[in-house]
């Protein structure tokens, strides 16, 4: 009997040990399972070029973080799906990523157009929505507590640094008159409007203002009218192609203003010179959220990793890739701080304090609008360089603008 009891005890003990071992293995497998991050990106359609740049940034970050032990000891696994630049598809993608693929986290898509509806879906499922490229006013008007725009400033504040720079000039060197020509677009004309309000307060007289519809192919007549009063400053509330057209029209008209600022289009280090000619870029101002030479946290690592993986030079790196990397970097930091990747914890934690990224030290209001400022960039000797504020500047701002072709 005793022998039988001992045998039974031995069998039960062995079974218990075996079960514990199996459970232990399963448990260790669970902790080692990768963190799945779902992203909808435009790999086709209108936003496919910037979408691909964002993809490069996300993938580069994931590869880097995985090579350095992952997040909280877990590898990162990106699941990127194409939305064809279509907001409806982006919504469907996030719905699928969250409810069917059960991703742990999501990152944002490209452009405000897709970010707004996507972030709304993520909010419904209480997912944090760290996003690199949705900074338009309509995104923040949604009042989503889960959204964090990982750039220093909302889109409409693009011109603030330029007006701040003008204030540093002696009164005699400032422009006296300004013309404003803007695209009828929520990401373009509000920038020029905000600048006009600030510049008018400085005593810079508006001599012409117009808003042109998106289908305007030929901007030459508009530029003719804008330059007729011979303004010292021309502000273009532009997106991209209209900035190129404005520059070409100015060159053809032979008019060289003392100051020339474009909200967008002129801040693309690769695209802009190829569209308007390398000799015509110098002296043109724009705004930028990131530069390869910024002393921001982790920027050197990003730049070196980017060039190692994709080649090229620092000044050829697309801002969209840097913005995407910053999203991953922010997640990494907040996960390290909270010791968790719980979405609610991430949301609560990010709403407090200042967060260092390659985009600068970021903080947000209750609905994800960042509280910082963009950098003022200018084309100097054929290179797009940060020129203001002084602590980020690589060159002094040049004014008046050099002649075309110079």
């Amino acid at each position, binding site marked *: 009997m005793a022998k039988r009891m001992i045998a039974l005890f031995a069998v039960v003990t062995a079974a218990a040990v075996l079960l514990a071992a199996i459970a232990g293995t399963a448990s260790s497998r669970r902790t080692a399972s990768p963190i799945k991050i779902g992203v909808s990106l435009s790999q086709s359609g209108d936003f496919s070029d910037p979408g691909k740049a964002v993809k490069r940034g996300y993938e580069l970050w994931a590869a880097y973080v995985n090579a350095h032990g992952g997040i909280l000891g877990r590898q990162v696994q990106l699941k990127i799906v194409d939305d064809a630049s279509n907001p409806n598809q982006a919504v469907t993608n996030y719905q699928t990523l969250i409810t069917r693929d059960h991703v742990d986290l999501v990152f944002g898509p490209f452009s405000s157009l897709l970010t707004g509806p996507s972030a709304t879906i993520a909010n419904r499922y209480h997912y944090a929505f760290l996003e690199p490229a949705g900074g338009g006013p309509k995104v923040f008007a949604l009042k989503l507590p889960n959204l964090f725009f990982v750039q220093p400033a909302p889109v409409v504040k693009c011109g603030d640094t330029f007006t701040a720079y003008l204030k540093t000039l002696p009164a005699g060197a400032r422009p006296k008159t300004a013309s404003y020509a803007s695209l009828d677009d929520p990401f373009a004309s509000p920038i020029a409007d905000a600048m006009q309000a600030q510049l008018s307060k400085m005593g810079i007289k508006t001599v012409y203002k117009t808003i042109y519809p998106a289908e305007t192919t030929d901007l030459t*007549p*508009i530029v*003719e*009218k804008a330059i*007729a009063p011979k303004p010292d400053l021309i502000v273009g509330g532009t997106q991209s192609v209209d900035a190129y057209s404005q520059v070409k029209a100015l060159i*053809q008209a032979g008019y060289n203003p003392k100051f020339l600022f474009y909200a967008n289009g002129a801040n693309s280090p690769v695209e802009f010179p190829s569209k308007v000619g390398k000799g015509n870029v110098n002296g043109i101002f724009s705004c930028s959220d990131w530069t390869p030479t910024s002393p921001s946290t982790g920027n050197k690592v990003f730049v070196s990793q980017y060039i190692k993986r994709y080649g090229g030079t620092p000044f050829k790196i697309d801002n969209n890739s840097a913005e995407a990397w910053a999203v991953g970097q922010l997640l990494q930091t907040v996960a390290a701080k909270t010791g968790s990747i719980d979405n609610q914890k991430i949301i609560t934690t990010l709403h407090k304090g200042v967060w260092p990224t390659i985009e600068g030290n970021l903080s947000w209001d209750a609905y994800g609008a960042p509280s910082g400022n963009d950098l003022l960039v200018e084309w100097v000797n054929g290179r797009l360089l940060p020129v203001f504020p002084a602590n980020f500047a690589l060159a002094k701002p040049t004014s008046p603008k050099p002649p075309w072709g110079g």
Partner: protein
Amino acid sequence: MHIFVQACILGLLTGGVYALMASGLALAFGVMRVINVAQGALIILGAYLSYTLYTDLGLDPFVGLIVVTPLMFLLGVALQLVFLRLLRDEEREELSLLVTWAIALGIEGVLSLAYQTSYRSTITGYADKSWHMLGYHISVARSYAFIASFVVLGLLFAILRFTKLGRGIRATVQNPTAARLLGVDTRMISALGFGLSVATAAAAGAVYGIVFPFNPGSHYDLISRLLTIIVLGGLGSLGGAVVAALFMGVTESVFAAEFSPVWSSFTFFVVLIVMLVFRPEGLFGARVRGAI
């Protein structure tokens, strides 16, 4: 007054470019009753081919036409034989819209894959140069484009008027059945006529690439303008397309400069609506076939 005159100069030059772009569309409709909504995409394809020849081989876009025009002609013939020949006469106008729309989307897709979606510009040495006269400036590139437009239109006119092919085309336009009875190979004429209309997209594309930045999606806006021009000018009328294009160029330019850019397109459409109400056949459109 200065701005008005300057805007008129700009408008005339731009209108000349649009005249060239619309001529192929007018020809396709005149010859085959095909509303070729792929013409915009074909022009953008022409712009890309010129751009590639210029950036890769240094071939000036106007010189590059020696290469691009025959290619586009062959493409036009092929498109007609493969897609449009199959359409029955009684449903040709309606179905050609669908078929050519599919062709446009196909071209856009291929271009997006090959060149991606970022904007391109053919920046030649004269792209941004201007002549300055009496206080006015005249864009060199637009002037070249204007001249090229009228050279191509002149050639097109000469082909239609003085060659056997042209006579065949005109006969086919006027009465396809009678033309067939008289020994005209109307199927071949249709293919060659369509090839000719697509070949104009080569010159139009070269010019478009110099004057405006473009990407594969640029054809949407372009085709809406071109359709408006040929409706105003009279479907199938080359002369009408030219006059309507010049009118559109000047109207848009003057309204954009003198009033508001928002009004410039709108004004043109108001004129178009008035025209459709009082003269639906357009400025030079014939009430019967054979307007070309």
